[in-house]
């Protein structure tokens, strides 16, 4: 499979499970093609390890086309590597140079415990969604989509928030391991649309409470999340969540 001419040194985080400590382990790779994706380069590494009878590196991935949010590698100090607006699976080896040393670590946060090697448990995100990231819809025939007029700008803003794939890069890069960007995107995508209004103020309170219960850190507005998010989720969403939270706590009757 290796047909290229790049020689690389990888320093990969190996950790047996949540109970044991991990460490960076060095691997040499030869003849890597610049056209490979970062994950394909890991496939080459794992084939070599398997052929040598060693344990392959465990890492998360699914779609390999930048839409599922499963891939999650902290590469040379940045989530999803050196390029902006791409996921690890969409990162190519041409973004590196022959002879490079590449350090690969898992997302690090108390709320994302390591399962094994580079795989972390992100079910904290699922529990935040379950706490309020839904709308109530009547059963029966779906109503005509145009029966609820939505201004174009509003629809676009909701769509941009909905682009969040839940990868967790925002948490991984935040110096506080805060999940504010993710949670605010998931709140905004519903708060911006008429269908999301009935639960709007209950939702923001429940989801923020769950976020805190999961042990994510507190946001200090460094902006690192926005800069590293592969989907370009904007800090505006965090400001909107803060506004909704204040409205909910100080002006709405429904305090959760």
């Amino acid at each position, binding site marked *: 499979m290796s047909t290229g001419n790049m020689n690389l040194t990888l320093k990969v985080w190996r950790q047996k499970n949540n109970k044991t400590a991990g460490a960076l382990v060095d691997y040499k790779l030869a003849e890597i093609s610049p056209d490979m994706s970062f994950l394909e380069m890991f496939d080459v590494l794992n084939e070599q390890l398997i052929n040598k009878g060693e344990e392959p590196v465990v890492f998360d991935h699914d779609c390999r086309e930048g839409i599922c949010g499963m891939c999650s590698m902290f590469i*040379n100090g940045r989530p999803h590597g050196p390029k902006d607006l791409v996921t690890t699976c969409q990162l190519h080896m041409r973004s590196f140079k022959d002879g490079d040393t590449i350090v690969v670590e898992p997302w690090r946060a108390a709320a994302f415990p390591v399962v094994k090697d580079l795989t972390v448990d992100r079910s904290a995100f699922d529990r935040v969604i379950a706490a309020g990231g839904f709308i109530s819809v009547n059963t029966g025939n779906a109503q005509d989509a145009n029966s609820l007029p939505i201004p174009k700008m509003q629809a676009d803003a909701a769509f941009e928030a909905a682009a969040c794939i839940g990868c967790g890069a925002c948490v991984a890069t935040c110096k506080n391991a805060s999940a504010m960007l993710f949670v605010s995107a998931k709140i905004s995508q519903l708060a911006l649309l008429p269908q999301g209004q009935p639960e709007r103020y209950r939702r923001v309170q429940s989801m*923020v409470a769950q976020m805190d219960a999961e*042990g994510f850190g507190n946001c200090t507005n460094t902006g690192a999340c926005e800069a590293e998010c592969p989907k370009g989720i904007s800090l505006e969403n965090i400001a909107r969540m*803060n506004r909704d939270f*204040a409205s909910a706590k100080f002006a709405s009757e429904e*305090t959760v």
Partner: protein
Amino acid sequence: MSGFGNAFSSSIGKKFIMGATGIFLILFLIVHCGINALIFLNDGGLTFNIGAHFMATNWIIRAGEVVLMIGLLAHIFQALRLTLQNNKARPVKYAVNDGKANSKWYSRSMGLLGTLLLIFLIVHLSNFWVVSRFTGIPTVDANGHEDLYAVMKATFQNPLIVGLYVLSMISLCYHLLHGFASAFQTMGWNHSKYNGIIKGAGIWYSIIISILFAAMPIAFHFGFIQ
């Protein structure tokens, strides 16, 4: 839960406290800097001492001083709590973390800058506040006002104090460069019509306030004002 529920104990509520006390301190600095800048009139401190006398005797100002202390302490204690919690949120650190690729160093160092400012504040308050409120200002000026100006002049003859003040104002500048705009974002004021103004005002505010404050010990020390 009833009433305001966990409004202030939640992570967003804690941000509100940081932001609100921060804005309050930003407003305080304008008043503080404005009155202190009267020393640059170079009239032997007569005008400045009138201002200082008013600030020390007016009961509204004295009541405000209590609120200021509470605000300052709230800002400091909340920051300590947040920092401890945030450290717990990432128990295992990264071997390699390229912070400069995605954020400003001073945004990531608010705790460090704030700690430097706290050390400065302890020195600063013992230099002036303790003297004017408790131990007493030794002399009076030509108008019969307590001569705080003379205390400043004497204090800033010490080059170590001048150095500490100037370095601390550099810390203040960077602390404000992040804090000013950050407070607005926390309060939910992120809007394309205002973001440019907020950012610009924050930069100008931070630079002007810090330079004016830093100029005071320098001017006394090198005798630019008498």
